[in-house]
């Protein structure tokens, strides 16, 4: 069996309504990229599948428009975007942007 690493996945700005808990500590396969994490989130964490379009696109290849992903509080746009390799202990955050005021 492939070995796994512990990571924290964190949802904010409304994305937390689609999952069981705002902050979740999970094990993901070693050498996962952010792209793999999106599929992991779809398959294992999203409980409200009818509103999946608030978080991920149809095939979970990208986040939905209006969602930013962070690794350890850094925009993945400053890293290698979806190709960023996840390390043990990383915190991956999904931030839905707010529009109210």
């Amino acid at each position: 069996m492939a070995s796994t690493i512990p990571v924290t996945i964190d949802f904010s700005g409304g994305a937390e309504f689609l999952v069981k808990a705002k902050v979740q500590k999970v094990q993901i396969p070693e050498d996962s990229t952010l792209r793999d994490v999106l599929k992991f989130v779809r398959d294992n964490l999203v409980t409200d599948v009818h509103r999946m379009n608030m978080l991920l696109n149809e095939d979970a290849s990208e986040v939905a428009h209006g969602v930013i992903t962070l690794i350890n509080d850094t925009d993945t746009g400053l890293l290698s975007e979806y190709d960023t390799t996840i390390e043990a202990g990383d915190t991956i955050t999904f931030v839905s942007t707010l529009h109210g005021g």
Partner: protein
Amino acid sequence: MENKDWVAGISKSDAGRYSRQLLVDDFGVSGQKNLKNTAVLIVGAGGLGCPVATYLGAAGVGTLGIVDYDRISLDNLHRQVAYKEDQVGQSKSQGLADNVKLQNSGVTTVVHNVSLDSSNAMEIFKNYDIVCDCTDNVATRYLINDVCVLLNIPLVSGSALRWDGQLSVYHYGPDCPCYRCLFPSPPDPSSVTNCNEGGVLGPIVGTIGSMQALEVMKIAAKLSTTLAGKLLLFDGREGKSRTIRLRKRDPKCAVCGDEPSITAPIDYVLFCGAGAHDKIENLKLLEPSDRVNVHEYQEIRTARKQFLLDTRPPVEFEIAHLPEAINITLNECRSLRADELSSRLGVDSQTSDVYVICHRGNDSQRAVVLLREKLGSIHFRDIIGGYEEWALKVNDEFPLY
């Protein structure tokens, strides 16, 4: 001896009025003078716009422009703290400008009592040095961003919903991204929740609006420690905030990139697929035979007790509901099996009619579509306009929210 034997950096009246600000290092006399020479535009005189205008007015900003076409309503007052009960019904932009002027007569206020759109935004924005986005909808946020980039004006952008707030400064400095660099495409309108639906707490918009005013003061004072290129996330429920580093300006950005394709404001309602306001749209999913109006339902329920399914979230159900209503949320209508729905509703094989109600009459239609698939022997009908219509036409004592 000559009467004036001192050198003053600032007038006596300003020194007296703003002394506590002048004492703050890195702000001081030069910050105060710069602020007095700055014209700031606030778009949206709501929960964010109130603290932004109040603090900037008090701090002695030179000119404060306020854009809003809306009127003050009673359900604004819990968070739009610049307004008083006797102002309900008045124009927001005028009301907010009046209150700023009462607090500090030295501020020049400009009232823009219009709905901001592609046809007027350039003309309004060009007279200002800094713009604050205090609006409530996606289309206007893209419009404000694009016009700020086209006129090279820094944008202090705040937003809030429920317990959360977000804050950033866009298009300020060569590496700083604009809103479009982060979000080249707008979100799916069906996935956007606004304060009318999701709610918001006053201190959340108060916190974010106050911080927007602070960012304006730093930009006016030419300090380098602004939130340009950063995003502040505030989680009021947990009492946590964090500031994240954002990506740099995207050279391929449609508006601030090296070869921009947007060189004038576009049609933002078309671009976003959603209106430039936070009002609720009226859906029409059902045939007339699957709908009743509130007067018809009042007659039906007076003749005989009915099955009424209420799709609202429990927090709304708790505010008020008709006594016969059974709370099964729209999400539960989706996820529950037919037998689970029947037992929650208390219906049996003899039941022929069930009515469905919600806040304003959109979710009730969605629910009817789902329910008739699962429980085909029952005729589901929605109540047109929901509890809002009920309160307006049948019983004005019903607590409207």
